[in-house]
C-alpha cells in the first residue's frame, strides 16, 4: 500500500478538523505520510518525480473513519464483500471502515479476526478493521476472549445490532475490558420494550398501523449502561443514539467525567419518521427514525460536540429481504458511499461548521480506536479526500458500488461529491 513516489496536492482548500483550521494551499506527501501542508509550501517546485495534483476549487480533508459498517464476509458475500465495501467506501471518501462482528461465523474468535485482517490487506483498497463480538456467538451471555481478540487486531467490542440484556454480563465485560484498555460499543435497545416494534412509537406509527418502539427502549438501556460505567470505570461508547432524551443523558454523564462517548447514525441525523411515508422499507432501521425534534437534537449534538461520531451504519440487504411488507422486512440501509454527501446537508443548512462535521466523521472516530488518522498532521498517514462540498447531484442507486442498493437516499438531491480518495498516499478512487 505504501508508495515511495512523493505527491504534491496544490491549490486546494485545506481543512484540518483537529485544529478547526481552513486555509488555501498545498499538501506534500512522502512515503505515504503527510510531510507538510499550508500556504508556505512552494507549489511551483515539487520534489523530483512527484505526482502533482491540482486541487483547484476543491476541499482537501482527512478521509472519513466509519466505526460501523456491516461487511458480508465471512458468510454473507451475497450482500457485501470486503472488496465491494471497500470500493463503496472509497467512492464515498471513507478511508477507514470498522466492520461489525455479525457474520457467519461471528467474529468471536481470534482466528476470524486474523482472517479478516489478512484478507482486508489483500482485497480492500481502504483500511478495513474488524470489531469483535463482546459475547460468544453474540449470545449476550459469556464474554469473548477480549485480550486475545484485541491482540489479533480487533479495534473494539460489540454485539453489533444486538443489545446485552443481562446487566451482570455487561458489568463483568466492562470490568474485564478495562484491564485491557478495550472499548465496548453497545447498541441501545431494551429487547422487551422494543419487542415487535418496527418504527418510532408516535402518532404516525398509530396512523400507519405499525407497532412502535418507544424512545424509552433506548434511554432505559443507556441509563443502565451509564450506571455500570460509573461502577466499573470501563470505556464505553453508545453506538447510536436517536432521541433528544438520550442526548440529555449523555450530557449529564459527560459532565460527570465518565469515560463515555456516543455516536449517531447518518440516518437519524438527516431523516425523520415522516420520510417513511408510504412504507418505504429502506427506512426501516434500528434505531428507528424519530421525529423532527429528535433529529434537530441530533444535529445540535453534533454541532456542540456532545455527539462524538457519525456512522454510516452501512447495512446491505438484498432485495428479497427488503421487498416485503414494512413490518416483515429486515432492518438496515446502505450508507458508506453517501455518508459525506448526506452529512454535508447539516453544513449547507448552516447548522454545523464543516470542521466540526469532519471532526465527527474523522478525528473523533480515529481517536476512539487509537488511530493517527483524521487530521492533517506531519507524520500522519496520508488518508485524504479531495471533494467539492457544493456540487449538486441526484442520487442514482445504480451508480453505487455496494452489492445492495437499499439506500434511503434513492433519488434524493444531495450536495457534495468526492473526486479523489487516497489511502496511505495512494489513490484508491478518482471521479
Amino acid at each position: 500500500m505504501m508508495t515511495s513516489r512523493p505527491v504534491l496536492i496544490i491549490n486546494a482548500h485545506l481543512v484540518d478538523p483537529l485544529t478547526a483550521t481552513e486555509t488555501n494551499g498545498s499538501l506534500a506527501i512522502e512515503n505515504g505520510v503527510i510531510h507538510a501542508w499550508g500556504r508556505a509550501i512552494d507549489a511551483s517546485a515539487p520534489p523530483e518525480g512527484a505526482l502533482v495534483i491540482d486541487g483547484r476549487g476543491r476541499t482537501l480533508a482527512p478521509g472519513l473513519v466509519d466505526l460501523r459498517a456491516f461487511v458480508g464476509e465471512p458468510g454473507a458475500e451475497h450482500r457485501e464483500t470486503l472488496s465491494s465495501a471497500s470500493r463503496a467506501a472509497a467512492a464515498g471518501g471513507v478511508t477507514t471502515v470498522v466492520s461489525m462482528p455479525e457474520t457467519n461465523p461471528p467474529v468471536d474468535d481470534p482466528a476470524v479476526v486474523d482472517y479478516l485482517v489478512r484478507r482486508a490487506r489483500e482485497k480492500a483498497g481502504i483500511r478495513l478493521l474488524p470489531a469483535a463480538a463482546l459475547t460468544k456467538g453474540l449470545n449476550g451471555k459469556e464474554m469473548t476472549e477480549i485480550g486475545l481478540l484485541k491482540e489479533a487486531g480487533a479495534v473494539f467490542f460489540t454485539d453489533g445490532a444486538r443489545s446485552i440484556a443481562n446487566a451482570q454480563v455487561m458489568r463483568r465485560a466492562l470490568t474485564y475490558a478495562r484491564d485491557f484498555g478495550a472499548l465496548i460499543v453497545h447498541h441501545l435497545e431494551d429487547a422487551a420494550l422494543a419487542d415487535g416494534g418496527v418504527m418510532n412509537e408516535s402518532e404516525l406509527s398509530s396512523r400507519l398501523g405499525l407497532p412502535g418502539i418507544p424512545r424509552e427502549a433506548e434511554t432505559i438501556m443507556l441509563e443502565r449502561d451509564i450506571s455500570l460505567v460509573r461502577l466499573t470505570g470501563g470505556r464505553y461508547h453508545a453506538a447510536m443514539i436517536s432521541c433528544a432524551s438520550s442526548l440529555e443523558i449523555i450530557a449529564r454523564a459527560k459532565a460527570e467525567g465518565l469515560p463515555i462517548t456516543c455516536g449517531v447514525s447518518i440516518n437519524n441525523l438527516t431523516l425523520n419518521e415522516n420520510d417513511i411515508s408510504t412504507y418505504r422499507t429502506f427506512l426501516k432501521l434500528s434505531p428507528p427514525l424519530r421525529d423532527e425534534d429528535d433529529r434537530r437534537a441530533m444535529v445540535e449534538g453534533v454541532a456542540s460536540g456532545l455527539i462524538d461520531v457519525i456512522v454510516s451504519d452501512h447495512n446491505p440487504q438484498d432485495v428479497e429481504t427488503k421487498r416485503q411488507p414494512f413490518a416483515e422486512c429486515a432492518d438496515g440501509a446502505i450508507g458508506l458511499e453517501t455518508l459525506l454527501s448526506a452529512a454535508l446537508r447539516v453544513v449547507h443548512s448552516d447548522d454545523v461548521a464543516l470542521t466540526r462535521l469532519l471532526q465527527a466523521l474523522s478525528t473523533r472516530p480515529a481517536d476512539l480506536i487509537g488511530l493517527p488518522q483524521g487530521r492533517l498532521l506531519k507524520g500522519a498517514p496520508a488518508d485524504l479526500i479531495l471533494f467539492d462540498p457544493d456540487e449538486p447531484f441526484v442520487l442514482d442507486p445504480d451508480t453505487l458500488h455496494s452489492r445492495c442498493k437499499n439506500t434511503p437516499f434513492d433519488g434524493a438531491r444531495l450536495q457534495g461529491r468526492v473526486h479523489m480518495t487516497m489511502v496511505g498516499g495512494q489513490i484508491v478512487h478518482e471521479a
Partner: protein
Amino acid sequence: MSNLTAPGRLFPHRHLLGIEGLAPDDIIQLLDLADEAVEVSRQIEKKKATLRGRTQINLFFEASTRTQASFELAGKRLGADVMNMSVGSSSIKKGETLIDTAMTLNAMRPDLIVVRHHSAGAVQLLARKVDCSVINAGDGQHEHPTQALLDALTIRRNKGRIRGLVVAICGDILHSRVARSNLILLNALGADVRVVGPSTLLPTGIENMGAKVFNNMREGLKDADIVMMLRLQRERMNGSFVPSVKEYFRYFGLDSEKLALAKPDALVMHPGPMNRGVEIASDIADGAQSLIREQVEMGVAVRMAVLEALSRHLPNSELRA
C-alpha cells in the same frame, strides 16, 4: 507435653475462627509450635499424648480431601479420637438446621470440632452454640485460617522471615477464602502483599485491605519473593468471570516466562488442588522453585499446633489457666 509447659504465653483464644482477631504474637506462637510438630511428624514414632482421651469431630459440609485428611492425621498424632462427618452421611441432608446439628453434636461432648461450611459466618454461628473449641477449616469465601498459617510456616522455614518479603497472591481473589486469610496474616507479620488478577476476580475495596492491586501479572510479579497461585474453578472460566482457559492462562497463568520476572530465588506456592495448564504450568508446579508439596506437609504440622494450643482451654485441662 512439649514446651507448652515451659513458661510463656497461653494462647488466648478458645476457638480459631479466622486470622482476623489474632495478634502477631498469637500467630508467631502457633508457627513456633508448628515447627516443633514438624519434627514430631518426621520421627518414626509420630504419636504424642497431648490429646489423649479427647474427642475431635471433623464436620465437613463441603467436600474436601486434603484438609480433612490433614486435620484427621493431626488429631491422631496428638492422640485424640477423631471422627469424620461429611455432608453425605449427615442429617443435614435430611433437613436439619445448622444449629440443631451443632446442638446434637454438642450433646455428645466432643472436645474439638473442626468445621468446613459453604457459607461465610457459619462456623462462627456454630461456635456460639457449642461448649467445645471450634476450628474453622474454611467458611464460604470468608476465611481459611489454617491454610494461611501453613503458608506462613512454609514461607518462614524457607526464607527465614516474613517481614519485608514481597508476596504476590495471584488469580481468583474474589472467591478465595485462602486469599483473605493470607492477606490478613501476611500483613500482620509485615509482608508487602500484592494481589494480581483480572478485575472481574478481585473483590470490591481490596485495595483498602492491605494489598497493592495489579491487573497485569507481569507487573505484579516483578521482584516478588513469593508467588502464591490460587485455584480458578471451572465454572468461572467460560465467559462469566474470564473468557476462556486459553485467555486466562495467557494473561494470568504462571509459566516460566512470567516467573522469570520475579526474584531469581522466588518461591511458588499453591493451596491445591491445582488446575495444571489453567493457573499454573505443569513444569512450574513440579519445578525447583515450587513449595507446593512442602505446603501439604506443613499443613499437618500447623493443624497439630492449633489443636495443641486450643486444647489448653478445654474443660479439665491440667494446663488450664
